[in-house]
Structure formats: C-alpha cells, structure tokens
C-alpha cells in the first residue's frame, strides 16, 4: 500500500516561502510525475515526502497515518537520488544489502532478495564490483536495486535520468516504466523533462514557484491545459502563442496553437511568413517561421519529413480552428 496525502503542506526556508500551502493526493499504485522548470520546488516537495526536509506547516499522511513527524527511515519509502548516492567503498552487493542490514534482516532473506533484484536489473555479474567500476546506467540500476529490496510503500525518484546520455535515458525510461508495471508500487518521480513526464506518468503534477498549476493525465494536460504556463510547458516543440487582433477575433486575450495543429501551404492560408531555421528529424520537420505581421516572434510548425521548405521560402500557415486554445488576460483557459 502506498497512498500519500499532502494536506496544506507548506515549506519555507527562513523568510522565503518556497512552497505555499499545497494539497495533493497520490493514489496507491500510481506513477506520479512532478514536473516544472528549475527551482519550482518539485525536488523540495519530494524531499518533504521523503522526510529529508521538515515541513513548515500542514500534514503528510501515508496510508492514512500521519507521517509528518516520522523520521525518513520509518516512512517505508525508498528514494533514488540524482547522483545515485551509492556508497563508494562498498561492493554492489553490499550497497544493495545495506538497507536490509540496517533493518536487521536475516542473512538468508537478504541473499534471496539481492539475488532476485540483481536478476531483475541485470546486475548478477557485477555484484562484486565497486560503484566506481560501473557505467552510468549500471550505477542507476544499483540505486534502483537498493530501493527495490526494501519493498517500500512507494518509490521516490529525484531526477534519476539527468546524468545519463540520451540513448541510455530512453532505455532507462522504459525500464522504470516496466518496473512499475511489474511491481505496481506507487512511484513519485521528479523531472524537468516534459518528455519523461508525458511518457511515464499516470498522473502529471505541473509545478511553478511551488504552486500546483495543474494535475491530470498526460493527455488531459496536452488537450486541455488549464493555463498558459501548462500549455507552454507540456508538448514539444512548444505551443505558439498569439495576442492582439487574431486573439480578439476569437474572443480571447491570447490564443495558443500547437505546432502539430498548423497546416502549411505555399499558395494560400491565414498568415503569411518566411521560413527561418528548419530542423529535419527524419520523420518530422520543425520549421521556424517568421510571420510578416508581428503577431508573434517566430512560430513553429511541425510538418511531414518529406516537405522540402528552405530558408527564406514564403509560406502560408493556417490553424486548425478546433484545436485552438484560448486564454484570458490572467492566462487562464477560456472553456
């Protein structure tokens, strides 16, 4: 079981309030991702749940029981750190065994759990090595192994993939998702990478300056962002925003249109512009268009990889009207 409830949790460092009172419920077995720009308080929130920071107010409940004052070790949560935080002077095996040793678990049970974790994470051949002799991905797996053997109520991941290269990151993303399917344990995952959030989460929590901007499934956030911040943060490349005349025409202060919801033509359309940088990804091409009228600085459009537009070409863009997001002066969505 791992149902975590945050009730008006507040955190201040001295006079600086990094997290104003905040409510959130993480259901048992859910994969929840905290996402937001650097310094938005997502890591602090995770550390509050872990117990590594003391809350300044409010209550944290784990499975209905008040855990606000419970020390980290007694909360039954396991954490994977960004730097992995492996113990460099211990072998992989001893690293994985450490939490069980601290809990005073019988030796044969320890051996059994180490063996099964090592098998699940492909670490069987590396058990006698030191962390310094492992690659980044293997260290990551040791850190996860050390978390698994405790059979925690929930896993906490603090940007675990940010130290890996792109290819490994993709592989580990799949492995962690796979692990979640297999263990069905609650997982709370912090990242600044919205792609990780979209691909892994059951539920995404978008944070900005310690405030929850929106909570929802990845597709809810993509289809119906509650405000301009979420709209701009979720989705890659970023949503295009237009203000002024075009927005007024649609009874809004700002309108947003995703690059994939624009169509391009060389002969006719709503807005005329010239092609700037073209990013060819193979299957898709992202074109950065400079519109003739200064509605927006540049607009990004996603077109098929077969389209051959070049720097300086004149093109016409048209939005798909049903996919336009409308926002008012304060940035809130107009339904």
């Amino acid at each position, binding site marked *: 079981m791992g149902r975590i409830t945050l009730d008006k949790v507040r955190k201040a460092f001295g006079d600086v309030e990094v997290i104003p009172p905040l409510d959130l419920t993480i259901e048992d077995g859910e994969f929840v991702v905290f996402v937001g720009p650097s310094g938005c308080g997502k890591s602090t929130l995770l550390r509050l749940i872990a117990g590594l920071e003391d809350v300044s107010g409010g209550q944290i409940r784990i499975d209905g029981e008040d855990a606000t004052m419970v020390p*980290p070790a007694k909360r039954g949560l396991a954490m994977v*750190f960004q730097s992995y935080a492996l113990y460099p002077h211990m072998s992989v095996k001893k690293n994985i065994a450490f939490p069980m040793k601290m809990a005073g678990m019988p030796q044969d049970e320890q051996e059994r759990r180490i063996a099964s974790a090592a098998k699940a994470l492909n670490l069987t051949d590396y058990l006698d090595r030191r962390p310094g002799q492992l690659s980044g991905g293997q260290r990551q797996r040791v850190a996860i192994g050390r978390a698994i053997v405790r059979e925690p109520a929930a896993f906490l991941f603090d940007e675990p993939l940010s130290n890996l290269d792109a290819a490994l990151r993709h592989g580990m993303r799949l492995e962690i998702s796979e692990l979640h399917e297999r263990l069905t344990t609650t997982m709370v995952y912090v990242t600044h990478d919205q792609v990780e959030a979209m691909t892994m989460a059951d539920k995404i929590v978008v944070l900005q300056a310690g405030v929850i901007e929106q909570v929802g499934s990845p597709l809810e956030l993509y289809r119906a962002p509650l405000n301009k911040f979420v709209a701009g943060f979720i989705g890659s490349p970023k949503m295009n925003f237009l203000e002024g005349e075009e927005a007024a025409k649609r009874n809004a202060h700002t309108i947003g249109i995703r690059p994939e919801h624009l169509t391009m033509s060389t002969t006719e359309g709503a807005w005329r512009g010239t092609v700037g940088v073209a990013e060819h990804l193979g299957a898709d091409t992202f074109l950065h268009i400079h519109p003739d009228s200064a509605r927006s600085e540049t607009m990004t459009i996603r077109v098929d990889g077969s389209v051959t537009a070049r720097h300086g070409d004149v093109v016409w863009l048209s939005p798909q009207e049903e996919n336009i997001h409308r926002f008012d002066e304060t940035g809130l969505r107009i339904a």
Partner: protein
Amino acid sequence: MATQHSRSAARLMMAPAVFVLLVWMLVPLCLTLWFSVMDYRPMRGTFDCCEGLGNYTRFVTSSSFQDAVVTTLMMVGGILLITVIGGILLALLLDQPIWGQGPVRILVIAPFFVMPTVSALVWKNMFMNPVNGLFAHLWRGLGMEPIDWLSQLPLFSIILIVAWMWLPFATLILLTSVQSMSSEQLEAAEMDGAGAFSRFFYMILPHMARAITVVILIQTIFLLSIFAEIFVTTGGAFGTRTLTYLVYQRVIESQNVGLGSAGGIIAVILANIVALVLMRIVGKNLDA
C-alpha cells in the same frame, strides 16, 4: 610541454635544485656513516680509525636502547591515538554550522603555530607545575592532592603536550575530508535506516580513511624526531628517553660522536622500517 626539446630544457633547469638536494642529504649521511665506524670522542681527542661495527653493537646491546625503543613507540602511539580520535571528533564538531565559524576554526588551528619549545615550557610552568600550575589549583579546588605531572606521569604529560600541538593538524586535514562527504550519500543512508552511529561507522569513517592514513603517516614521520618537548620538560629523565634523545645524549652529553652516529643510523633504519610498514598499510587505502 612534452616535446623532446622542452623536456631536456626542463631537466637542465631542474639540475641545480637536484644537485643541492643531493649534497644536502648525502653529505651529512655519509659523514654520519663514516663517524659511526670511528672511535670519535672529541673531548678526549681520540679520532681513531676503524671500530668496525663495534659502535653499533655497543649501542644496540646497551640496556637504554631497548627502553628507548619502547618509549618511542609508546609516545608516538599515544600521540597518534589522541590526535586521530580527537581530530575526528573535532572535525565532526567544526563541520556543524555554528555562529562564529571562521574565528573558531582559526583558534583551533592556533596551537600549531606555537613553537614546540615555547608550548612545552608553557605547559610545564603554567599547567603542570605542582605548586602554581592551573591543574594544581584545579585539583586543590576539587579537594584533591595535586599531581606532580612531570615526575609522576612524565610520559603521559609529554604525550599530552605534543598531542595538543598536533591535534590542529589532524583536525584540519580531517575537517576537509568531512566536508567533502556527499550529503546525498548521507541522506540515502538515512533513508536506508542508518542511525547517527551507523552513518558514522559505515559512511563517514570509510570516507575519511584516506585522510586518516595521511595524518598517521605524516605525523609518525615528524613524531619520531620529537626532541624539544622532552629537552625542556624532563630532560630525558623518568623514562621519557626516546631514541632521538638517546642519540643526543650519546653525542653531546657523553661526547661520543662515534657511538651517537651509529645510533643515528640505527634510528634512520628503524624509522624507514616503520615508514615502509605504514606505506604498505596506507597504500591499500590510497589505491581505492
């Protein structure tokens, strides 16, 4: 930097320094070796050739030699014990955020700047004097008979004085080691259920192992040659005669340069054996 030309230029420029160093070390060593096989007693005007190994056997077989070796080992061991354990505790304490951290750290280092002779005299006269010393006052204040430190506990007193001097050195090196400890590792250990003591013994102490061995190695080399502290306190009496002090007595007090030189060479050999053994132990730690 790696071209043939620049390498030979570098060698040429280093040559004078290397030459000076060689002369500096080799001339005294050769002279000592030479004297150690002579019957050289300047006050009697004897400078006769070829004692052979007579000086060596006489030095080693004298009863004071064994005592001196034991005293030296006890003194160095005692000082190491106090400075390393005390240094670790002080380093942990100084690592905590406290008000006035900067001045406190400078104050802690201060004893290291006091000259050995001065600090030993201050300890002898201000603290350990059985009549006027602060300890005597303290003892009397507690209703106890004051201890005459330097005659009742001479070895321990000298250990205390020298340990006080070397504690800052150990603290300083160990503090840098504590400060380089990754906080995420400690947090991970905390989440893994390790209490304060487990965190110290499983995380912090292994992390400090390297610094501890460096402290032990450097201190041993310097502590084997303690002299001033013994000279101004007990003058080698009451079982505080170390090997260094014994050599001094043979050369200066007995005016037997030949015998003293032989003792000096033996001390060098013994120190090298100790250093080698330490290096072996340390080597393992430094590799990891």
